[in-house]
């Protein structure tokens, strides 16, 4: 056996286990989701009826699905923008300014991320409680009774309440990510800029942001994926999609249809839409934020 051949054999053997696992546990199930979306099937019987794109046509007219889609998009956009702004702001302050107890704040901000989403649901249901909740009590102390709300009962507000919980949960994680890349920027850049008379804000927009841009791009994709997943978990644990479906997100609706309504094929059609949507959105976001990577 020649040297290159044995080398190739070695590479092949090393790669194969991961490749097999990838095919069996990633590609095949994904392919199954796409295949099942073309069938009418309850999930158990052997009568899988091929219906072509019927499931997708039905989806187009299903108002509950459209509402859950709207909710998901709303959550993705709001959670991404607000979390991003807060995380970058806090990260910049904690790395660049000499804040007393900076490490303490870093830990405090990061704690929500360690908590299970069920615990977060518990915490926020206590915060939002209509009569004894933290939020309404604080508003009561400042005599702002007219601002007191049914945070989880009013259909116009409840989605914001969910978004707030998701943002609270996410800030610490992204802040730590931004901090790590900000810490890598050489301090001499800032020294030079301040000698030139650049304000703190100018320094932030002209030095910090461009130099952590690549990191920000990565986190934008994370925002999309994690909001889709976590919003499902939070909805399941906290509101159950209620009141009357007003907090239903597309994954919870998919679950509802695939299991609760015994229409597994239809659920998979929703799965296909979610899959394509998140892929497409991530691709678009990554494309429009593409810049030349700055080296330092």
């Amino acid at each position: 056996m020649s040297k290159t051949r044995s080398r190739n054999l070695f590479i092949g053997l090393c790669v194969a286990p991961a490749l097999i696992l990838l095919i069996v546990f990633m590609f095949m199930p994904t392919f199954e989701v796409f295949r099942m979306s073309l069938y009418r099937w309850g999930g158990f019987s052997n009568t899988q009826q091929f219906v072509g794109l019927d499931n997708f046509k039905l989806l187009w007219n299903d108002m509950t699905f459209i509402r859950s889609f709207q909710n998901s998009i709303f959550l993705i956009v709001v959670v991404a923008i607000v979390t991003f702004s807060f995380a970058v702001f806090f990260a910049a302050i904690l790395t660049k300014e000499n804040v007393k107890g900076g490490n303490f704040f870093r830990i405090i901000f990061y704690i929500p991320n360690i908590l299970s989403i069920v615990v977060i649901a518990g915490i926020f249901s206590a915060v939002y409680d209509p009569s004894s909740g933290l939020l309404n009590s604080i508003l009561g102390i400042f005599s702002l009774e007219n601002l007191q709300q049914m945070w989880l009962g009013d259909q116009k507000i409840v989605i914001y309440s969910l978004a707030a919980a998701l943002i609270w949960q996410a800030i610490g994680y992204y802040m730590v990510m931004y901090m790590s890349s900000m810490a890598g920027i050489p301090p001499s850049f800032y020294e030079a800029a301040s000698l030139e008379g650049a304000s703190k804000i100018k320094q932030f927009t002209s030095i910090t942001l461009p130099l952590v841009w690549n990191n920000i791009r990565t986190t934008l994709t994370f925002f999309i994926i994690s909001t889709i997943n976590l919003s499902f978990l939070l909805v399941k644990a906290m509101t159950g999609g209620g009141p009357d479906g007003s907090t239903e997100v597309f994954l919870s609706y998919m679950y509802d249809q695939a299991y609760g309504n015994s229409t597994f094929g239809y659920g998979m059609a929703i799965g296909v839409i979610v899959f394509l949507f998140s892929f497409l959105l991530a691709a678009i976001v990554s494309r429009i934020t593409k810049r030349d990577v700055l080296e330092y």
Partner: protein
Amino acid sequence: MKKMKFLLTVSIILVIFTLAACSNGEEKEEKSADKEGSGEKTTLKVAALESAYGTEMWENVVKSYEEVNPNVEVDLQMEKNLEEVVRPNMQAGDYPDVLLLATNREEALTETLIKEDGVENITDVFDMQVPGEETKVNEKLLEGFTDTLATNPYADGETYLAPMFYSPTGLFYNAGLFEEKGWEVPKTWDEMWELGDKAKEEGISLFTYPTSNYFDTLLGSMLYAAGGADFYSSAMTYEDGIWESEEATKALETVEKLAGYVHPNTVANANPNDFTKNQQLVLDNKALFMPNGNWVVDEMKEAPRAENFAWGMTSIPAFEDDGDRYAFTFFEQIWIPKDAKNKDVAKDFIAYMYSDEAADTFLEAGAVQPIEGITEQLDGQKQTFYSIYDEEGVLPAMGTFASTKPVPGANMGDTLYGSIDSVISGDMTFKEWQEKIEEVSDKLRPALN
């Protein structure tokens, strides 16, 4: 290029090896299963939902069944999230022989199998002799329990699910408070509104509900009260225009009127995380009534409560004086999947569920079966709940929606009960609600099994 080809071949060979290894294992397993089958002992796989009654009663019943039937070895599986555990096995073709899993659960595993014709017809079980006894099953069963859509889902007189633990449901209240204030428990909706106004003056709301799903028994009883048993079954079989009929309108309108009397915090807490806060409202004398089942007593066992608190339960009020009042009976079902391996033994096992010994064991843990004379063995508070039908003018109501083929996007439960949150909060009028229900009913009618 050559390199690529080589890599590909190697990985394909490895894939084949892995798959072959998998299938070998399966064959071996099957062989060993065959051996057991042809041998002396049959292994019966029983899967039961672990509920508030605990696991011990099932372990004891299984033990006593094995004594009566020494040829059978029972492999008992109990889980709180039974659906999640058995579903993957069932999809891989490994079915339990007997399942105790009720309908109307969130994952709807039982409904899915009913819709897919995956449940075995067990009509003959009721003519079987109870193992170890002289009597037949249907001689022991309470009347009416095997005539409902909850046991005969295709409305064809054939029984597919056997009734197990039952509990009457109704409106729960603080009997101590009623005594203290000298209030009468209302028998009609008019009396109900009167009481509601009286209570409002004292700062107490008339009504609350844990989640909108609890309306399944309340609305069911109202439909019975509005139009009787035949009307109820027409509604459950999606008869055209039934939800726009006078009777249905009466029931739906009453729910809308109820909205004015519901405790303001109710909708905000009507979710899986906070529903006990709504139940707490009754314990704290902040709301008078809530629809519930007798499990609420155990559920709220540890909760703080008002002084002189005592649980009371009443039927759903009638629409006119001396009208019939109903209290819905909720029960869990036991059934055999069509793909089970040991159906005959499974049927024998179900028949045994109604034996005196099994019933006593279940009763000890607080689980009551619909067996003749069982309510006499109950004591104290339980007895008052189960004897609700002894009250004059109170009738039992039972049933659920008829089974249909799965219809994408059309979920009767979500529409009929889920929308109640919107009706109560004023986001939807009863007219809009009615239209939505009729629309879903229209979609489901052609899909009836």
